């Protein structure tokens, strides 16, 4: 039950995009079409889950052990960057269809602040190993949910008459604001 609460809270109540503002760049950049947005979401979920495992191990087994906590930003960002590269190579080797679906999105994920944010939040909230994985999975699912909904709205927006200065990023931000309002309906269901 505890684990379910962590999952639900990171996926919906404290959605990474809509309440922590992490991963805004892909959220605005890759949300033109539902299919590509969904692939981006899947790739991010995949990397997030693995990243939460690896950074947890690095933090607790190496950094804390040798009292090197001040190196956490440098080591996390390096680990995430190489992890993304590694995941890309593995996927290319074992599954061509999956690579074709996720391939171009993987390099973009390195600069997605949601991944580093996730690693930092897991340290900050002092989750244990299992809780960390569930938290990472939930955050990924939440990201997929938000970006897919956004892409759905933007596909409809193509046929709407938006004032010229507001086309592109501004209208996307305003829609994100309304989405964030909708997601606020979940707040208070779980504290923390």
């Amino acid at each position, binding site marked *: 039950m505890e684990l379910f609460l962590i999952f639900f809270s990171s996926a919906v109540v404290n959605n990474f995009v*809509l*309440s*922590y*503002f*992490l*991963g*805004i*760049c892909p959220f*605005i950049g890759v949300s033109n079409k539902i299919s590509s947005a969904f692939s981006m979401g899947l790739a991010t979920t995949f990397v997030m889950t693995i990243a939460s495992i690896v950074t947890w191990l690095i933090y607790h087994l190496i950094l804390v052990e040798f009292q090197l906590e*001040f*190196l*956490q*930003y*440098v080591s996390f*960002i*390096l680990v995430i*960057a190489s992890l993304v590269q590694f995941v890309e190579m593995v996927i290319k080797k074992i599954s061509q269809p999956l690579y074709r679906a996720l391939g171009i999105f993987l390099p973009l994920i390195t*600069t*997605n*602040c949601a991944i*580093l*944010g996730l690693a*930092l*939040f897991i340290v*900050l909230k002092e989750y244990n190993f299992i809780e960390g994985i569930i938290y990472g999975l939930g955050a990924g699912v939440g990201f997929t949910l938000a970006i897919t909904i956004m892409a759905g709205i933007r596909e409809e927006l193509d046929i709407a008459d938006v*004032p*010229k*200065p*507001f086309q592109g*990023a*501004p*209208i*996307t*931000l*305003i829609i*994100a*604001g*309304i989405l*964030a*309002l909708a997601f*606020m309906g979940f707040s208070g269901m779980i504290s923390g």
Partner: protein
Amino acid sequence: MSSKLSLSKEYLKGLWENNPVFIQVLGMCPALAVTVSAINGIAMALATTFVLVFSSFIVSLIRNLVPSQVRIAAYILIIATFVTIVDLVMKAQFPELSKSLGPYIPLIVVNCLILGRQEAFSSKNSVGRSVLDALGMGSGFLIALFVLGGMREIFGSRTLLGFQVLPDFYEPWLIMILPAGAFLTLGLLMGLSNAHSERKKRITKEAIVQDYLNVKATLKAKQES
């Protein structure tokens, strides 16, 4: 092309014409997340400027030494080092502020504004120009975050930098200090800034057309006479 710009222009272009938040749409995460109040916005922008200036300095110093295959990794390492410095200093000197900015200080590492400037500018230009460019972009970021944070603070809690600016009978809009308010305010500000620059563009275009017509008319008059 950029090397032709005068030094003052190198600094000024970041303030408005190429403003990192409103025009280039970079560095959105911190711009949205910490601007609950103007003071948070200023602190965030100053921290980012510090990291930006020093990483631009180092990157432009070593721009000819780093092989291009590993340049991104090298930039990220340099940025992460300066972010660690900022974070430790803030924790020691301004514990309150550091707590209210929370994990967003470490997240400066992945602020695409900083990596973007290293890749687009510092890796190709001299040290002086890179530092000026970084200062300009940092100031532009400061302006954007101050405007955003100021607006949210005024409408969301009646105050600006802690001083009350709206009278007591004004009911604070709760939405402004919630996440939704950040998205809405930034979206509106960006739309307004687009409308402004489009209007300016139209005016210059009309002026050019008018000039052309005037010249044409005088030439015609000369030929006839």
